[in-house]
């Protein structure tokens, strides 16, 4: 389903992924726009998007606490069990853009930190697009079956501890270590990777955003301005 993932990144997206407002930057610090363009020009060929997805049927949900999945997996988390109590299926997802952008950003850090940070912004925008593309594709497929998708939930979110979630997603997906591997502290390598799940069911609300559940939402500068519920901020 994800042989080809179209990734078109604009300088505005790079700036937003650096926590900046593109409209203000354009007027006040146009040089940063040039850096964003350079990161796009030099970084696009380095992207190696890869996605691992597996969708499992929900068999039953116990007392709003445990989600029993086909094949015997159990997702034990009160928050998710409440949020996904309408789910008929759950898609488990890992996305990455590979490690070339991070390598480039690290190599540049001492030489030109501004360009290094532009590459980081470019990489964040790219992983955002890959994840959004996957979520949208799953959403479209669900629509064809008259179903809807939930917002994405990522391990490390306030009510889904990193350790618990990463162990679960990695054990269900078992990705090739050449695509993404998990460190002993549950970090994914390559760095520009994300993991999440998406509920699929008949009645998910459409006005929810992941930011609504995030502890840093009051001060966060990464909240997406657009309505797209799958965009960067709503994901991590």
């Amino acid at each position: 389903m994800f042989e080809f993932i179209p990734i078109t990144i604009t300088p505005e997206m790079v700036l937003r992924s650096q926590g900046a407002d593109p409209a203000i930057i354009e007027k006040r610090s146009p040089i940063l726009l040039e850096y964003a363009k350079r990161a796009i020009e030099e970084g696009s060929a380095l992207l190696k998007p890869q996605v691992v997805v597996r969708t499992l049927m929900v068999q039953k949900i116990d007392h709003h606490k445990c989600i029993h999945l086909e094949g015997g997996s159990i997702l034990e988390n009160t928050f998710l069990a409440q949020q996904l109590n309408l789910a008929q299926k759950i898609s488990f997802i890992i996305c990455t853009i590979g490690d070339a952008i991070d390598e480039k950003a690290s190599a540049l850090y001492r030489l030109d930190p501004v360009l290094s940070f532009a590459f980081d912004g470019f990489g964040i925008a790219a992983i955002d697009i890959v994840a959004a593309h996957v979520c949208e594709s799953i959403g479209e497929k669900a629509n064809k079956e008259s179903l809807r998708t939930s917002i994405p939930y990522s391990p490390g979110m306030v009510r889904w501890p990193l350790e618990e979630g990463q162990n679960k997603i990695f054990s269900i997906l078992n990705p090739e270590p050449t695509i993404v591997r998990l460190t002993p502290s549950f970090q994914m390598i390559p760095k520009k990777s994300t993991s999440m799940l998406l509920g699929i069911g008949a009645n998910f609300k459409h006005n929810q955003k992941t930011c609504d559940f995030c502890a840093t939402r009051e001060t966060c500068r990464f909240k997406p301005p657009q309505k797209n519920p799958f965009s960067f901020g709503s994901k991590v």
Partner: protein
Amino acid sequence: MSDLLRDIYSSIMDGRQKETAEKVQEALDQGADPSVLLNEGMIAAMTEVGKLFEEGEYFVPEMLVAARAMQTGLGILKPYLVKADVKSSGKVVAGTVKGDLHDIGKNLVCMMLEGSAFEIIDLGADVDPQRFVEAVHQTQADIVAMSALLTTTMPNMKVTIEALKAAGLRDNVKVMVGGAPLTQQYADEIGADGFAPDASRAVATAKSLLAA
């Protein structure tokens, strides 16, 4: 403030690297006092950038571009400062704690500290407590600055503080911590000496720790 000093100030504020270098050189050629250029031109500009960032007016990449202009100017100024015997603000061993790969915030803190004439020993990300200890031992650092972006890796800050204690070095250094999920309360709980919510306030915290 002289015209040249004002030019240096505004070229740093706007992040104009080449112009900062040219103006600093021009001022030095005209016999300006290096410590006046540093304190009244460059550090004053970075302080203003930091203040605008804290107020939510400036964005991270703007602070970065200003810090880079500052560093370039400092590079030119350094030999003159050494001659004039202007001391570095202090030595800082910095790193993101073990298990954590997030380094963007730590990098920014390092740049801002460097821009305020601190000497930085940057250990990178995923830094083992023992490496912090060794670096403090080898460099006789004044401050250890630790960053963590994950709740799961935050406890490694305390582990590092304990390792410094075990090595008998805790009383020799100030410990400063930061990262998006951290709070002053957490910093107090683990026995750190200082916390700052952003790179600009990290500079103020570092200065006040050394003044204490």
